[in-house]
């Protein structure tokens, strides 16, 4: 058996070759094979990792501030559109008509509301 001699002593105390390297694994009661990295990667994987991939990606990304401005602008646009629609003169006129008036308008115009744009016709009739 191949052995390693203790350098600090002239006495013939010897340990097997590579003994000290195996202590860590032996403490856990395992062979040196267990200490070997059991994981692998696809062939050539590390060669595909280049800084350019990341720097390009970062430069393409819009900033968080710009994204937030866009998001808030979209919400504000929807909000104002809803306000404008609900406060339009046509809709306020519509709010003030009585049910009987609506029926009278439908009858007067000989319109079948089921087949046509109900609100539009009423607004046109009122506006006349």
């Amino acid at each position, binding site marked *: 058996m191949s052995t390693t001699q203790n350098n600090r002593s002239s006495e013939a105390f010897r340990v097997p070759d590579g003994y000290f390297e195996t202590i860590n694994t032996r403490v856990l009661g*395992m062979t040196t094979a267990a200490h070997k990295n059991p994981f692998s990667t696809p062939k050539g994987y590390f060669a595909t990792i280049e*800084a350019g991939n990341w720097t390009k990606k970062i430069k393409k990304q819009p900033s968080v501030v710009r994204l937030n401005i866009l998001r808030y602008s979209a919400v504000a646009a929807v909000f104002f559109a809803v306000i404008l629609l609900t406060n339009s003169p046509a809709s306020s006129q519509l709010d003030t008509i009585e049910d009987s008036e609506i029926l009278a308008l439908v009858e007067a115009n000989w319109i079948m509301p089921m087949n046509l744009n109900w609100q539009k016709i009423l607004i046109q009739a009122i506006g006349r």
Partner: protein
Amino acid sequence: MSDELAFIESLRNPKTQDQAFSVLVEQNKERLYWHIRKIVLDHYDSDDVLQNTFLKIYKNIGKFKGDSRLFTWMYRIATNESLTFLKQKSRKLGIQSNEYIHDKAQNLRSDPYFDGDEIALELQKAIASLPDKQRLVFQMKYQESMKYKDISAILGTSIGALKTSYHHAVKKIKEKLTTDQTF
């Protein structure tokens, strides 16, 4: 150290940052990948986490104060990104992150990028059964052969606490492997 400071400066300088970042990626991609891989186990997940890690390094290099080594700062980012990734994945599945990693370890046999034998497989399962902190300490100390001083800087834990965690981790792994009668 002065070399490192000069390198950090070149990473911050808009004129030199792209070239400096290429050097940083080239020098650190493998060791950061393996550090991440030991935490998340799956190759494709590791690839995602590695990308996020480098993106974060690139974006935040300006905030790096230099009170630790660049290597420990990058490892800290990689560790946090890996743990965040595990939490997000497990949340989607409605389970705890340690359950998720336990399942991953159980399925390693069918992983095309796991070449370990039965012993290595059982060891991975035993490591996966540890709580997060003990698992990280065990991996960094035993599998990556890192110094306690460096692990302490990365995890922000005292060396004494790390030694205790490592001791508990080794004890639990030994018990688990003995109970399973693999050896």
